[in-house]
C-alpha cells in the first residue's frame, strides 16, 4: 500500500515537472501565439485588436499566474481551449487519439513481436550469415531517421509503384465517418510499416545479445549434455530468460515509438496526436501541447512501471514483489 502511494506521488511529481518544463520552454520560444493564430490575416489586424485577443486568452497576465491558472483548470478536469484548432483540447485529443492508437499502438506491438523473433533467430544462428544479415539490417535501421525512412517508403510505394495512398487516414474528400475498413487499412499500412521498421531494430539487438548470453550459460551446457536439441533449448531456456529483458526494452520504447510517430504522422499527413503536437508547437498552442505532453508522460511512465511489476512477478530472484 505504501509502495502504491509512493508511486502515485512520484507520478504526480513527474507530471508536474514535465508540465512546468514544457510551459517554460514554450514561453521562451519566439513563436507568438496570437500572430500564429492570425496567420496571413495579421495584415488586417491592428495592435489594439491583437492586445484584445491576448487579453482574452490571458496572455497579458504574469507567467506564473498563467501556469497556476492552467494547473488549477487541469486539476478540475478542464484541459482548456486549443487556439490552433479553435476547439476544447479534450475534444481535439479525443478526435485524434483513435488514429494515433491505431498507428502507434500497432507499431509498438508489431515491433515488439518482430523484434523479439528476429533477435531470437539471429542469436540461435549467431555468427552465420543469417545473424550477420539481421544485425546489419538493425544497425542500418537504428541509424536511419524515421522521417527519411518514411519519405523513402512513400517515394517507392506511393509515388513510384502507386500501391499505397500518398496521405491521410482516408481518401481525400470522403468524410471520416464514411471511410470503409479496407480504405482505413490501406491508408494505415505505409505509416505502420515505417514506424514498425524503426522500432524493430532496438528490440532485436537487445534480444539477440541477451539470448547469446543465455546460450553460453552453464544451464544451457547441461541441457546440451542431456541431449537437448537447439529448438528445445531456445524454447525452454532461451525465450524464458530473454523475454523479460526484451519486455523491459519494449516497454521503454513506447516513448521512442511515439517520438517517431510525430515525424511519421507529419510525412504521411496522418491525423493523429503526433501531427497535432507539431501543429501545437508551430502555433504556440500551449494548452494542447501541455495536454499531449502529459498524456505521453503518463503512457511512458506507466509502461515502465508495468515492466518493473512484470519483472518482479515473473523473476523469482526479484523477490516476487
Amino acid at each position, binding site marked *: 500500500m505504501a509502495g502504491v502511494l509512493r508511486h502515485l506521488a512520484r507520478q504526480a511529481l513527474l507530471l508536474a515537472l514535465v508540465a512546468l518544463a514544457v510551459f517554460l520552454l514554450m514561453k521562451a520560444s519566439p513563436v507568438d501565439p496570437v500572430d500564429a493564430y492570425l496567420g496571413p490575416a495579421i495584415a488586417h489586424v491592428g495592435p489594439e485588436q491583437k492586445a484584445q485577443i491576448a487579453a482574452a486568452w490571458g496572455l497579458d497576465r504574469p507567467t506564473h499566474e498563467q501556469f497556476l491558472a492552467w494547473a488549477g483548470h487541469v486539476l478540475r478536469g478542464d484541459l482548456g481551449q486549443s487556439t490552433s484548432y479553435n476547439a476544447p483540447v479534450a475534444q481535439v485529443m479525443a478526435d485524434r487519439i483513435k488514429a494515433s492508437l491505431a498507428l502507434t499502438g500497432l507499431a509498438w506491438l508489431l515491433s515488439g513481436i518482430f523484434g523479439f523473433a528476429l533477435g531470437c533467430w539471429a542469436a540461435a544462428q549467431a555468427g552465420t550469415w543469417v545473424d550477420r544479415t539481421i544485425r546489419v539490417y538493425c544497425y542500418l535501421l537504428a541509424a536511419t531517421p524515421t522521417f527519411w525512412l518514411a519519405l523513402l517508403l512513400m517515394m517507392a510505394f506511393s509515388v513510384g509503384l502507386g500501391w499505397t495512398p500518398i496521405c491521410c487516414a482516408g481518401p481525400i474528400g470522403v468524410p471520416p465517418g464514411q471511410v470503409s475498413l479496407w480504405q482505413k487499412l490501406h491508408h494505415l499500412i505505409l505509416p505502420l510499416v515505417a514506424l514498425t521498421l524503426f522500432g524493430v531494430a532496438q528490440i532485436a539487438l537487445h534480444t539477440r545479445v541477451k539470448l547469446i548470453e543465455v546460450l553460453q550459460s*552453464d*544451464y544451457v*551446457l*547441461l541441457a*546440451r549434455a*542431456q541431449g537437448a536439441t537447439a529448438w528445445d533449448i531456445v524454447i525452454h*531456456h532461451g525465450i524464458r530468460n530473454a523475454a523479460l529483458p526484451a519486455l523491459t526494452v519494449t516497454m521503454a520504447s513506447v516513448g521512442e515509438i511515439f517520438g517517431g510517430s510525430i515525424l511519421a504522422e507529419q510525412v504521411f499527413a496522418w491525423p493523429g496526436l503526433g501531427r497535432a503536437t507539431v501543429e501545437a508547437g508551430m502555433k504556440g498552442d500551449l494548452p494542447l501541447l501541455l495536454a499531449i505532453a502529459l498524456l505521453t508522460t503518463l503512457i511512458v511512465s506507466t509502461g515502465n512501471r508495468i515492466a518493473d511489476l512484470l519483472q518482479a512477478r515473473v523473476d*523469482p530472484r526479484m523477490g516476487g514483489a
Partner: protein
Amino acid sequence: MLNVENLGIGFSRYTGLLRQEEMTRLSGVSFDLCEGEVLAVIGGSGAGKSLLAHALLGLLPPNATLRGTMSFRGRSMTPYPASLRGRRIALMAQQVSHLDPLARLGAQTRWAARRTGAAKVPDLQTLGLGPETCRLYPGQLSGGMARRALFALAGVGQPDLLIADEPTAGLDPENRDRLLALLQAHAHRGGAVILITHDLMPALPVADRVMILDEGHMCGFESSRDFKGDGMALTSPYAHALWRALPENAFLTDA
C-alpha cells in the same frame, strides 16, 4: 566400457586478420574405463579437466579440433553419436548455475526426463529432497540440495558413464561424503564414474585409480591405494611430489 587413445584437443584462433594459430590445450591422454570403476581425474585450474569432460560429451566448441580416438563400448565416438549424450554418458554438473534460474526444479527434472527418453521422472525423494522441493527455483536451494538435484538430473537417463565435474567443490564434509557415496553406489551397480576434482584426499576412498593432469598433459596414472605413507609406491614423480605437498603430509615441496 570407454577407451581413449592419445586424445588431444587444440583450439584455433586468429592471431591477425587471416592468420590462424592452433593452441594445444590437451594432449596425450589415454585410458580405459571398465564397469564398476571410479576414475578420479586430478589437476589444478587450467589442467584441461573440464575440457576432457566436454570432449567425452561431444560438446567442444566449433573452433576446437580433436585428435586421437575415443570409443564407447567398441563404437567410435567420432563423429559424436548423439544417442550417447544424456542416455549413455551423462554430466553431473558443478554449480547451481547449471540449473535454469527461471524454471522450477520440477519442470527441469521433467525436461531432463524427456530429453534423455527416460520412462519416468526422477524421484527426488530418495535423495532427501521432498515433494515441496519441486516447486522451488534454483536460487532457493541450498548448496547441498542443488548438488543432489544435479545428481538426480544426471541419473535420469540411467547412463552407464557418469562424468562428475567438481561435484564436491564448496560442500561441507558431511554433504561431500554423502555425494561421493552416491557416485560410488553408481559404480557398484555396474556403471562407471569419472570424478573430476582438484581435491585429492576426499576422492581417494571412492576412487579406484587416479589420473593426474597438469597443464594439458597426462602425467601419471596411479592406483588410489598407492597414495599412502611417504608415497614411495607412486610411479610418477609428479604424483609423488603432489602427495608429499599435501597439508596432511607436511607440505614437503622439495621432495
